């Protein structure tokens, strides 16, 4: 009797705690969104997106920071994604569990745990100063590429691992080489997973602030080449708010940032589901 009562009690308490956990997660998310959108949405007019900042960002729009963000993210993805996916292919298809593969995996795990400011410091010392690239899209993009590598590698590795061994066996048994098997059977199947990993990395690149200030600078001038310094939207937001330049513009930038990430995610999900439907 007593045992039964405590069992029901435990059950009830567990249920309540789990509900609190789930609800507070949603609540925090909604609160953040509401706060930023309430303050930021009124600022979002077309000219806010299409005009470059004036007077340190007090007036005008955020166009140059949008260009900066896009350029930086593109460099990061174009460098980081092929390297990461290549590493994942190497780990799963070209090598067996060995000292080298364990070392690579250990390395990426460590990399995943390094705080972004440390990546920033590394990028500043290595790309900006040592390689003399200065504060630039290139320095920032390469730093971000290094930062997103662990995510790209582990998600790509997981999705490559999920491809049934029998597919590979079929491909080899039909006279396929390793490369043909990878490109025609393994990668097409793993693509949705790989894409998801890249998407996470895009989000991380767009949102990154600390590492970017140290490597890409915070210039509001419209970039003209990969060697131009830039200011990303996140950095812009940070500087506007931190230096008390304009809370209104800061919230506007924040709202624009959230909308961007949202749009990218929705579009990417749509692409992935279309791809999956097309294949089945």
């Amino acid at each position, binding site marked *: 009797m007593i045992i039964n009562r405590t069992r029901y009690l435990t059950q009830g308490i567990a249920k309540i705690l789990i509900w609190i956990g789930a609800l507070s997660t949603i609540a925090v998310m909604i609160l953040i969104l509401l706060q930023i959108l309430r303050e930021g949405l009124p600022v979002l007019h077309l000219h806010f997106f299409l005009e470059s900042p004036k007077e340190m960002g007090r007036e005008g729009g955020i166009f140059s920071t949008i260009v900066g963000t896009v350029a930086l993210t593109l460099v990061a993805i174009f460098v980081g994604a092929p390297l990461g996916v290549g590493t994942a292919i190497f780990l799963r298809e070209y090598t*067996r569990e060995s000292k080298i593969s364990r070392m690579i995996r250990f390395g990426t795990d460590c990399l995943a745990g390094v705080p972004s400011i440390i990546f920033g410091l590394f990028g500043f010392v290595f790309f900006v100063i040592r390689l003399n690239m200065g504060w630039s899209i290139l320095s920032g993009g390469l730093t971000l590429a290094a930062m997103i590598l662990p995510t790209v590698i582990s998600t790509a590795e997981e999705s490559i691992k999920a491809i049934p061994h029998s*597919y*590979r066996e079929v491909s*080899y*048994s039909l*006279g396929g080489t390793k490369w043909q098997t990878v490109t025609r059977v393994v990668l*097409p199947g793993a693509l949705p997973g790989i894409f998801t990993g890249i998407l996470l990395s895009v989000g991380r690149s767009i949102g990154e602030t600390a590492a970017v200030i140290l490597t890409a600078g915070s210039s509001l001038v419209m970039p003209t080449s990969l060697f131009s310094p830039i200011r990303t939207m996140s950095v812009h937001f940070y500087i506007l708010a931190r230096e008390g330049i304009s809370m209104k513009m800061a919230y506007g930038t924040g709202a624009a940032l959230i909308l961007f990430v949202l749009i990218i995610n929705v579009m990417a999900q749509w692409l992935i589901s279309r791809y999956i439907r097309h294949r089945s």
Partner: protein
Amino acid sequence: MFQESKIIIKDFSFYYGSVQALKNINLNIQPKEIFTVFGPARSGKTTLLKSLNRLTDLIFGTSYTGAIFLDGMDIYDPKVGLTHLRRRVGMVFDLPTPLPMSIFDNIAYGPKLSGTNRRNRLDEIVEKALRSAVLWEEVKDRLHTSALRLSGGQQQRLCMARVLALEPEVLLLDEPCSGLDPISTASIEETLFQLKKDYSIILVPHNIQQASRVADRAGFFLNGELVEEGPVYQIFTKPKDKRTEDYVTGRFG
């Protein structure tokens, strides 16, 4: 007789790590015959098939002794092109394994690997292969739908067609009818009779009845050992070895 053999297996042993899966096998396979390899589970049948086109290479930590010759060529010679060997010795697995692509692309997969990309050539190859596997009539109107939507029996015939598209010389069939209904089984067996005219076929049968229905010769495997081989009627009616007799009469297995 010795020189005419398509495949000569000579003192062949195979190991997974320290576990010996095949023990000193000596066996000749003739052109245009169906040779059936039967025996209880884990007796080395699949290993034997996979070592004939070196799919065993995909498994880590294996080793072998002895030799296997295909038309007099040692297939374990380092100079042998693996992709070339596997095109000559095609294999169909025990479970249907369509690749996640259309019926057409499944069949065209092999030919494309070796650079056949012309559309009308591929059309011909696909039709011919599907006809040989007795699948053409059922799928000709939906070649570009996913192969995963076919029934189990159709999928297995698709896998057969996929191998036939490469026009191999030897066919390795590892229980191609396991998990299939009797009607699909009958159509696959019918296919085998057709194919025998052109190929050497090594078949791990679904059961002993199947072995006696389709095969010319049979070999009984037990614990990695080739206990006995000979014409089918002899193996199944007058086996020389006590163990073979016990197995075919259903005393164990």
